[in-house]
């Protein structure tokens, strides 16, 4: 289990040599981005114990900002990422401050973050002048990323594959570093017994906010790439169902482990394509698999594999 992440990375690095299908690459790319989302979400949920439903909003807002800056104002993609992440940071600090100052816990926190997220979605949905409302914005040409030199265009499936893989690695490493440090221990303390943590000198508010903001900004980073790769952004990016999907990925893979959400995300992204059946059968089977997996492996896939790594 210790070598799970490096092994997976190695396989991922060489997989495109064997796979030549554009659609499989696309599934992998979406899988990587979903995994990045899930890993960053798990920082907030699995490791800090805060069930945030703001993740989709961070993701979507950033995707919108980048897309608007690039399509309407002609910005360079990389440049556009900066204000996008800044906005996500500010939003998450505002929402986080409100929630944590008022000591909203558990489902109260979940529902209030969902409320903020929904309000943002409705604003984007109805702010027709800027966001083109429900139609969303299409990146007219095949989306491509310019490297700073302006020479190489990243537009092929393979290039995006490695780019999003790198994104996942970055998100993973950032979370891993945070969790293996003293911050990770503070987060664990907050998750398990915040009153005790507080009497041991941990500034619970500060660390909750930190984890929420870092997780949200990472989600924003994923959003920036996601909108660009898929070629369109739409209000659905901020939907509750995306938030629930992320939760399902994390739970399936295993909360409280770093690699778990990656596994969960890849499986849940690929699953609908693997079970290629009539629509009714497919969703029925999808649900049954979800239920079955949880009943058989109550701690997620990683929990089943045995080595549960704690964050302290």
């Amino acid at each position, binding site marked *: 289990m210790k070598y799970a992440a490096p092994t997976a990375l190695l396989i991922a690095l060489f997989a495109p040599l064997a796979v030549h299908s554009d659609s499989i690459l696309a599934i992998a790319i979406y899988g990587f981005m979903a995994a990045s989302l899930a890993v960053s979400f798990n920082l907030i949920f699995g490791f800090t114990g805060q069930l945030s439903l703001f993740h989709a909003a961070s993701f979507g807002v950033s995707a919108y900002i980048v897309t608007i800056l690039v399509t309407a104002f002609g910005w360079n993609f990389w440049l556009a990422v900066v204000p996008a992440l800044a906005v996500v940071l500010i939003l998450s600090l505002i929402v986080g401050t409100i929630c944590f100052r008022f000591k909203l816990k558990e489902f109260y926190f979940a529902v209030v973050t969902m409320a903020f997220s929904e309000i943002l979605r409705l604003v984007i949905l109805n702010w027709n002048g800027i966001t083109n409302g429900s139609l969303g914005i299409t990146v007219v040409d095949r989306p491509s990323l310019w490297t700073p030199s302006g020479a190489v265009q990243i537009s092929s499936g393979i290039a995006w594959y490695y780019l999003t893989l790198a994104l996942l690695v970055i998100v993973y490493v950032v979370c891993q570093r*945070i969790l293996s440090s003293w911050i990770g221990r*503070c987060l*664990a303390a907050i998750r*398990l*017994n915040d009153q005790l943590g*507080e009497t041991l000198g941990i500034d*619970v508010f500060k660390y909750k906010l930190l984890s929420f903001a870092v997780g949200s900004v990472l989600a924003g980073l994923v959003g920036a790439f996601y909108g660009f790769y898929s070629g369109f952004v739409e209000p659905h990016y901020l939907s509750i169902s995306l938030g629930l999907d992320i939760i399902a990925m994390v739970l399936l893979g295993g909360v409280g482990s770093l690699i778990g959400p990656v596994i969960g995300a890849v499986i849940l992204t690929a699953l609908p394509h693997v079970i290629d059946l009539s629509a009714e059968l497919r969703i029925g089977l999808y649900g049954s698999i979800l239920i079955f997996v949880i009943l058989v492996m109550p701690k997620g896939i990683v929990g089943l594999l045995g080595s549960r790594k704690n964050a302290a």
Partner: protein
Amino acid sequence: MLLDIQGLIKRFGGLTAVSNVSFGIERGEIVGIFGPNGSGKTTTLNLIAGILQPTEGSILWKGNEIGRLASFEVAQQGLIKTFQNPQLFPELTVAQHMRIACHLHIKRALGIGRVLTLLRGTPGELDGVLTRKIDQMLELCRLADKRGEVAGALSYGSEKMLGVAMGMVCEPELLLLDEPASGLGNDEISNLDAVLRDLRTHGVTLCIIDHKVGFLGRLADRAIALHHGAIIAVGKTTDVLDNSAVVEAYLGKKHA
């Protein structure tokens, strides 16, 4: 005076749990707090530790008011309190508890330099220092053989001891212990006694609540007795325990 409490009052609705309590604690002392059940002992310590906010009165720590600070700020100033009902992180092992309790140590040692450790991935040298320190502390508290067990699997006595060990590893200047000996057997209590005496020689000031009069009566230099939220006796421990009001309200006649 290390800690100086003046006119402390705490009301819960119509109930006055602490009424006009004033006392001081000098550096290096061991102060015992006695009193019948519900007399306001825990509430007083919670007020000092910032877990509760006083209704009235002032709490001066080295001359500065700390009555309105949050509990983590109080802890950062060097006052640590343990809980009467053991409070732990159920999923974590004993050793992990101790690592978390080293939070303030790391913060003091590295300051903002902690951020650099993020890049390296480990806290570096400090790691060895902390491990040694934790081992030593667990040894003292007879928890060394339980270091790998999760808190949920501990017996009540071990839970209590872990709480004390965590408090000690925070390196407080003043350690507030709420009934550390309740649930401990005789043997463990004498060990605790030795540990706490040793702690004092290292310059830590202690303020302890306990109903084990034998234990705390021997340990404390000075005692305060509370009844109905008010101080009914204060002074040398033996004097307080001989005080007739204390005997009547708390010890029962035969103990006198």
